C-alpha cells in the first residue's frame, strides 16, 4: 500500500507545497474563533499535508513524522483540551468555563484566549486522529 509514486516531478512539487499548506492551515486554526474556519478545518488540512507527504515520499516521510505519531498527537491534543477544561474546574468555575476571571486576566480576554487555545488543541486532535486513521489503513492492518 505504501508504494512510492517516485516521479521527480511529484517529489519537488510536494516538498514545495506542503509547508505552504501547513502555514495556511495554521492561519485557519488561529482565526477560527471569530471568522470561518477553526480547529476542525485546520486540523484536516494539516493531516492532508502529511498524507500528501506520505504518498509522495513514502519511507522518507516516516523520518520526521514516525509511524504512530498520529496517535501520540491525537492523545496530547485531547489531553490538553481536557486540561483546558479542568483549569476553570480547579478554580471553582464549572468544567470548560474558560471565561472565568483568571488571576490577572479579565473575563473577556480570558474567554478570548480560552477559545483560541481550544481551537489549537482541537486542531492538534483532528490532525493526529486523521493521520492515525491513514497510517492504520496504509499499513494494511496486518495483525
Amino acid at each position: 500500500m505504501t508504494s512510492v509514486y517516485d516521479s521527480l516531478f511529484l517529489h519537488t512539487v510536494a516538498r514545495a507545497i506542503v509547508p505552504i499548506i501547513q502555514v495556511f492551515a495554521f492561519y485557519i486554526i488561529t482565526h477560527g474563533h471569530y471568522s470561518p474556519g477553526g480547529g476542525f478545518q485546520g486540523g484536516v488540512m494539516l493531516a492532508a499535508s502529511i498524507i500528501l507527504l506520505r504518498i509522495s515520499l513514502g519511507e522518507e516521510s516516516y523520518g520526521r513524522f514516525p509511524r504512530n505519531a498520529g496517535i501520540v498527537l491525537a492523545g496530547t491534543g485531547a489531553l490538553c483540551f481536557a486540561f483546558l477544561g479542568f483549569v476553570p474546574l480547579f478554580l471553582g468555575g464549572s468544567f470548560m468555563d474558560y471565561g472565568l476571571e483568571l488571576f490577572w486576566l479579565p473575563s473577556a480576554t480570558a474567554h478570548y484566549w480560552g477559545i483560541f487555545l481550544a481551537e489549537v488543541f482541537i486542531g492538534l486532535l483532528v490532525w493526529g486522529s486523521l493521520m492515525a486513521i491513514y497510517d492504520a489503513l496504509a499499513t494494511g492492518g496486518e495483525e
Partner: protein
Amino acid sequence: MITDFFLGRYPFLFIALLLVIGVYGMMMKRNFLKKVIGMTIFQTAIYLFFIQGAKKTGASIPVYSVDLGSASDAYMNPLPHVLVLTAIVVGVAITGVAISLLLVIYRRFGTLDEARILEQMRESA
C-alpha cells in the same frame, strides 16, 4: 395544490430520497465497501435535513457581520450548523472504524463480498 406541495417541500423530499438510497445501499449491496458508501449517504442526508431546517429565507450565513447588525432574522439559525459539525465528526469516526474493519476482513477473508465471506465462515465454523 400538488405543485405547492412540491414547491414548498422539495428539499425534504430530496432528503427522504437520499435516506432511502442510503438504506438501500446498506441493506442490498453485497460488497461491504458499497455498504459503507450507503451508510455515508444516509448520514449525509441527515446532516442536510438539519441544515435545511435552519434555513430562513433571506438570511445570511450565521457569522456575525457589522452591517447586518444583530437582528435574529438576519442570520440563519446557527445551532443546527453546529450540531451538523459535531455529527460530521462522529460520521468521520464511524467511517474510519468501518474502513479499518473492512481492511482486517479483506486481509482475513481475501474478499469483501458478503456471500463469499459467509461461505468461508460457515466452512471454518
